[in-house]
Structure formats: structure tokens, C-alpha cells
């Protein structure tokens, strides 16, 4: 019985073996390993001496970590809401049977093709006060014009969010526009006959129908937030001070510069937990729907 089964499925198992190996070694193995290290007193070198939650206590007493988490949450809310609003408005405008739609689309989406490093470097250049927009306005004669947000710890996150929205709102626009185009024309006709204004129709009828698209986009944007690293490196380097530090950079620095792998893996475990709590249920729901649908 076993033999027959193996013979029949041998090729399929062979085909899956690279994927299986990666999943077992990296996605399962490395995760467990990483969590395990976080429970030991590893510093420069890994250690087998378990210290329970000691690293987590240390982590939560590390100001830079707490700042990083706070920054990420603040940035995340700003970035996701601003991208959703801008992108959705752009999609609605694009949906008004406009001329030159292809051109506008090409323009709006090109930032998506660029690396966050590139995005960060351009915006850093535009926003830094000595030669950027501030200087230009002062040259025009506004001698007291101030625009140096990137240099102040209370405002630097806004500039990072600005650059991220510049890059990310095109994605929202593309997905929302596809959603809008998928709405049955009859809905629009019905709304017109009932005398509902176009603005009202969008707000009360069409956008609620796009719940799935909005959820997808939000998950994608959230992924960008959690992985935020390159943009910070290129744009602010985490500064001024710790004011634009983020968890991914914290982990990187503690792994490679401070060589405190116990603390770094504790931080990565917390991030993992955060992702599992927020994205896990959504993905499990999708997966269950899929498994059921694949019955036959």
C-alpha cells in the first residue's frame, strides 16, 4: 500500500522537495531557532544557558526599542490612512471617464518600481533645508521660510511618511481602480434612477462593496510598515537622535553592531508575534476558504 502510494506520488514529492526544504529549514526551523536564542543569555556568541524572559525584560527597558515601536505605530497609522485616502481619491478621479488615463496611470505608478533606497535618497535631498525646498523658497525672497522637518525629532516621521505615501499611494490607486471597474454598471444606473448623488453613491454604495479590495490593500501596506528599514536607512539613518528608529533597524543594529543577539532575537520574536496576531487570522481565514473550495 505504502509502496504503491510512494510510486504514484514520487515525482510530486520530488517536485515539492525544494519548497518543503525551505519551509522546514527557514520558515519553521529558523523561526524556532530564533525564538530559542531569545530565551538564552547569548550576546556575541549563542549560548545554551536559558534565562527565561530575561532578554524580554531587558528589551522592554531599552528606550531605543520602545521608541522604535512607538515610531512604527505612529508612522504606520499615518502612512496607511494617508495612502488609503489619497489612493482611493485618485482611483475615483481616474474612474470619471477621463482622457489620457493610460498616461496618468503610468505617471502615478512609476514610484512603485523604485527601491525604497532610491525613494529615500531623493526625498532626503528635496527635504534637507540647506539646498532643498527651504533654500529655494528663501532664494525667491521668503527669507524666513521654514521647512526643515527632516531635521527635527518631532517632525521627522512626517517626512518619512510623505516619502512612503508618495511611493505607495499608486498601489492603492491601482487596486481600488480595479475594484471600481468591477462594480456592475447596473448599480450606477439604479442609483441614478433613485436620484442618489454620485458622491453619495461612492460613499454609501460603491466603497462598501470594495471591502475586499480595501482589506487587501491594507494588508499590503501593513507589510510595508512592518518591513520598514531601507527607507529609514536612506532618508534619516534613524535620526535625529532615535526619533526615526524602527524595530527592523533595531534588530539589525543589535545583531551586527552591538552584537547582542539575545536582545535582537527577543525583538524579532516580538515582531513575529505582532505579525502572527494581526495577519495570521486573516491568512488562516483565506486558507480555510481555499481548502473548502478545493474539495473537488
Amino acid at each position, binding site marked *: 500500500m505504502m509502496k504503491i502510494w510512494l510510486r504514484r506520488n514520487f515525482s*510530486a514529492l520530488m517536485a*515539492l522537495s525544494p519548497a518543503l526544504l525551505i519551509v522546514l529549514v527557514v520558515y519553521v526551523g529558523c523561526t524556532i531557532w530564533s525564538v530559542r536564542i531569545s530565551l538564552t543569555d547569548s550576546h556575541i556568541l549563542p549560548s545554551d544557558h536559558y534565562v527565561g524572559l530575561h532578554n524580554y525584560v531587558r528589551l522592554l527597558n531599552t528606550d531605543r526599542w520602545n521608541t522604535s515601536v512607538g515610531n512604527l505605530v505612529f508612522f504606520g497609522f499615518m502612512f496607511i490612512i494617508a495612502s488609503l485616502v489619497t489612493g482611493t481619491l485618485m482611483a475615483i478621479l481616474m474612474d470619471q471617464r477621463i482622457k489620457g488615463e493610460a498616461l496618468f496611470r503610468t505617471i502615478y505608478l512609476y514610484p512603485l518600481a523604485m527601491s525604497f533606497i532610491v525613494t529615500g535618497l531623493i526625498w532626503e535631498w528635496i527635504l534637507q533645508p540647506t539646498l532643498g525646498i527651504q533654500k529655494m523658497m528663501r532664494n525667491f525672497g521668503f527669507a524666513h521660510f521654514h521647512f526643515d522637518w527632516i531635521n527635527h525629532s518631532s517632525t521627522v516621521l512626517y517626512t518619512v511618511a510623505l516619502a512612503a505615501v508618495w511611493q505607495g499611494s499608486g498601489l492603492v490607486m491601482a487596486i481600488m481602480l480595479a475594484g471600481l471597474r468591477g462594480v456592475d454598471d447596473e448599480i450606477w444606473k439604479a442609483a441614478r434612477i433613485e436620484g442618489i448623488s454620485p458622491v453619495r453613491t461612492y460613499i454609501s454604495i460603491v466603497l462598501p462593496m470594495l471591502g475586499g479590495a480595501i482589506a487587501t490593500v491594507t494588508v499590503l501596506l501593513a507589510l510595508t510598515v512592518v518591513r520598514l528599514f531601507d527607507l529609514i536607512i536612506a532618508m534619516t539613518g534613524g535620526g535625529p537622535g532615535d526619533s526615526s528608529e524602527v524595530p527592523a533597524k533595531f534588530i539589525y543594529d543589535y545583531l551586527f553592531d552591538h552584537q547582542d543577539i539575545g536582545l535582537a532575537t527577543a525583538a524579532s520574536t516580538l515582531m513575529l508575534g505582532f505579525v502572527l496576531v494581526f495577519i495570521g487570522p486573516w491568512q488562516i481565514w483565506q486558507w480555510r476558504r481555499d481548502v473548502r473550495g478545493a474539495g473537488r
Partner: protein
Amino acid sequence: MSRARKHLAARVAIYTCLIAMALFVLGPLYVMVITSLKHMSEISSGNILALPHIPTIAPWLVSAHKLSAGFLNSVKILIPSVIISIAVGAIAGYALQFWRLPGASLLVLILLIGAFIPYAVFIYPLVRILAFFGLFGTLTGIVIVHTTFGLPVMTILFKNFYSSLPVELFKAARVDGAGFWRIFASIVFPMSTPIVIVAVILQVTGIWNDFLLGLVFAGRDNMPMTVELNNIVTTTTGTRFYNQDMAATILTAAVPLLVYLVSGRWFVRGITAGAVKG
């Protein structure tokens, strides 16, 4: 106001918004290009939006020279990574969709969640594993890393595409006498052209634009262009040559921008398909 005038006003407002947004989106690209064509003296005295008085291509030549090694490294990383990650994903997606194997759905679940786990979680153990096999800091090592992190999206992308094909095609091929690899090679893969294009776009832009993985795993000898660009721009001491920096930035962005312009609508399909189900 008459209906026609009201209509006209609305149209004007719509186009004004669209054009304003387009200018905002294009602005940085414009600034990059003109700055890269200016002399340093003009940059430090002039204004960021002004066209260059005396254009120069010298900064481009300097940057191209500085980045040539990074460019070659990126190409060397890109080609095998794209091919291998797509091959592994396509075959895994096919096996998962068409062959009922025990535990297959659990594998899919891990991939669905794995697509969202921050890289930071894997970095340290992965460095150790690659170092153990002597692959840390090698071209093979970074290709393995890109294949690894491309696996969830690639597998799910292909699996979803295959789930939209009628399963009877696969059954007919089995009755016709084709085995696992033959069905893949003669029936399934030839029908996969659209999704392969999407996958290529996703992987080319994704891997070219990668910074963190290249920084950690590629090693000094294989440093990709993004890492080299960042080193040139942010770690130089002394006077910064903004014109060279901007030229270097444009050069780094050139490959994915070209992919974007050539692929057009496929690119949109790519980024939306990258949504890992939606």
C-alpha cells in the same frame, strides 16, 4: 448655473486634481534628473527646481564608473535568483494544486503566513546556516536567500493561477498517458505564459530593489547596486557631490523603471497579484 456649465466646472476640477497629483508624483524624478546635470556650484547657489544653466554629463560618468561593479553584481544576483525562484515556485504551485498530497494544505498555510513574516526574524539563524555550509557572503548564498524569500509569493501566485485552469485538462492528460513531469512540461507550463510574465516582473523589480538581504548576505564581493548606492551617498565624508549622487540614484532605478515602462499593464497585474490572494 446651467447643467452644462456645472458639468464643465466638475471636469475642470477633476483634471486640476489629476494634474496636480501627477506633478507631485513626477516632481522628485524631475529634481533628480536636473540635479544630476548641474555643476556643483550651480547646485549650492541655485534653486532645486531650476533647469541647469550649463548642463554637464560629468556626474553621470563619475557615477557610472563608481557603480559599475554594483551593477554587474546586481545582474549576477538577479538572473539566477529570478529563474530559480520562479522555477521552484511554479513547480511547487503545480504540485500543490493538482496532486493531492497529505499535509499539502498545511504547507500552503505556512507559506501564506511566511509571506508576511519580517525578514529580521530569520536573519541570524540563516547567517549561521549559510556560514556553516561556507555560503555566507557568496553569490550562491544570496541566490538561495532570494529563492527562499521569494518562495511564498511565487508558489501562491502559481497555485492560484493553476486553480483557475479547468482540472479536467489535467485529468485528460493523465488519461492520455502523461505523467507528472510530462503534464507540467507539455500542458501546464505552456499555458502559464501570462503568470510567468507577472512573476518575472515581480521578481526582477523585487530582487533588484532589495537592500537588506543584499546588505547582510551578499558579502563585500557581490554587493548589489542598491547597497553600493547607499554606501556612496550616505557614508561619504567631506563634500557631498549631489549631482553625482542623483546620477547614481537614477542609474540604480533605471532597470526597474525600464521594466515598468516596457511591461505597462502587466506591471499592474504583477503588483496586484503580489497581494498574495485578494
